[in-house]
């Protein structure tokens, strides 16, 4: 099963049908383990039990950036390698990424109220993630604005690559500016500063969310391929009626 095999939509659908139940089961297992570990993690000496929002908030934030990176690779696949399913992958990923970004903003806001005393603050990290959310919505609007999916794909690919500049800005915003959001404590030079009791559940939840994205993405790609087939059939039917 080479990548060129995967370019065939029918073969891709067959592969997706075989793989999806296993991916879904693996996601469920990882989520169960992660949630159990999060629930039994100790309370923080300063934040108390509220620290456990971190186990939901941080994986959502990681995934929001990861999905844009995946879409950027798909955009390169559309523009550079002309892979037939690259635009399907990009279109299917956008709403999922927007959902992760929205959840990251909402859970962060709910965490900020007890911790910082405010639901929102215009600091660098929150502002750049909000801009990422707006860019996701703009990208979804662009996909739906052009009738022909393959022409929409090329426009959306350009916008995805231009918007990828936001990812390093988000990641390093807490280093470049004096922000309310705390600096990096997991992915930083010199290793993580989180205690193992918090780091392990966090990484397990991160892995679970990643598999959740892969499962949802494959299912969404399958839906998009079927949607395009329906559209082709409708157009054939309409032209036959006219003839």
């Amino acid at each position, binding site marked *: 099963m080479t990548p060129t095999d995967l370019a065939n939509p029918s073969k891709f659908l067959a592969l997706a049908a075989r793989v999806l139940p296993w991916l879904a089961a693996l996601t469920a297992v990882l989520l169960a383990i992660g949630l159990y570990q999060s629930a039994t993690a100790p309370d923080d000496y300063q934040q108390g039990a509220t620290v456990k929002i971190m186990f939901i908030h941080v994986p959502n934030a990681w995934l929001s950036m990861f999905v844009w990176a995946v879409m950027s690779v798909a955009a390169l696949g559309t523009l550079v390698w002309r892979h037939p399913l690259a635009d399907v992958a990009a279109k299917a990923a956008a709403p999922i990424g927007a959902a992760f970004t929205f959840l990251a903003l909402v859970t962060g806001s709910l965490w900020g109220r007890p911790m910082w005393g405010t639901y929102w603050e215009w600091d660098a990290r929150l502002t750049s993630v909000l801009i990422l959310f*707006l860019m996701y919505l*703009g990208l979804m609007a662009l996909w739906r604005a052009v009738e022909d999916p393959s022409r929409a794909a*090329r426009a959306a*690919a350009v916008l995805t690559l231009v*918007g990828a500049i936001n990812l390093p800005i988000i990641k390093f915003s807490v280093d470049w500016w004096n922000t309310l959001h705390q600096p990096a404590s997991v992915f930083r030079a010199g290793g993580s500063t989180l205690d193992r009791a918090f780091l392990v559940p966090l990484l397990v939840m991160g892995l679970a969310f990643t598999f959740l994205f892969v499962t949802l993405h494959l299912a969404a790609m399958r839906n998009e391929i079927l949607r395009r087939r329906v559209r082709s059939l409708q157009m054939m039917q309409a032209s036959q009626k006219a003839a």
Partner: protein
Amino acid sequence: MTALGALIRRDIKIALRVGGGALIGVLFFLTVVVLMPFAVGPDLKLLARLGPAILWLGALLASLLTLDRLFLADHDDGSLDLIAMARTPLEFSCAAKALAHWLAAGLPLIVATPVLGLLLNLDLQATAAVALTLLAGTPALTFTGMIGAALAVTLHRGGLLLAVLVLPLSIPVLIFGVAASDAAIGGPQSFGAPFAILCALSLVSLVVGPLAAAASIRHGLD
């Protein structure tokens, strides 16, 4: 070189003569700046403090509204196809059109800034600072806005979508423009750092904008 020069001259002539001319952008800038005191209140000290932000917002919105003129007229009468097929690389043609657009629509905004600064009770130093940051930042607005204009050119009612696509990319320019202006007026921060980043944003958009716009036009036209 002469092909690009001809393109710039043509675009400037069209921008100055058609659709209300270049001054329509200045008129919109004036309208926005005049509206602000009605919303904020006539307190002169408050207006002086908000002055750089109001001027920057007005310039951003004025350049946003003139952006769809960049490619739309050419797309409608077919000249965009000819420009795309010409021997001059499409990236240079897009850069030339954006330069012409900035000269015809961006520069008048900067020239109008001192007059509008009077309306907002800005002193000479503040007005000069805002005008300087606008001079450094409006190229970034034009060249990144060109990306949205190129993406939306093939859509029929793409005006609002253009704004939604362009605004997130313009936010850094706005942030650093206002930061530099406020720093020059009298703030704890230095003027040099935000101003340098503003110039850097303009320089980066000079490269990225034409590349992305040319790619969008090329893919959108076939």
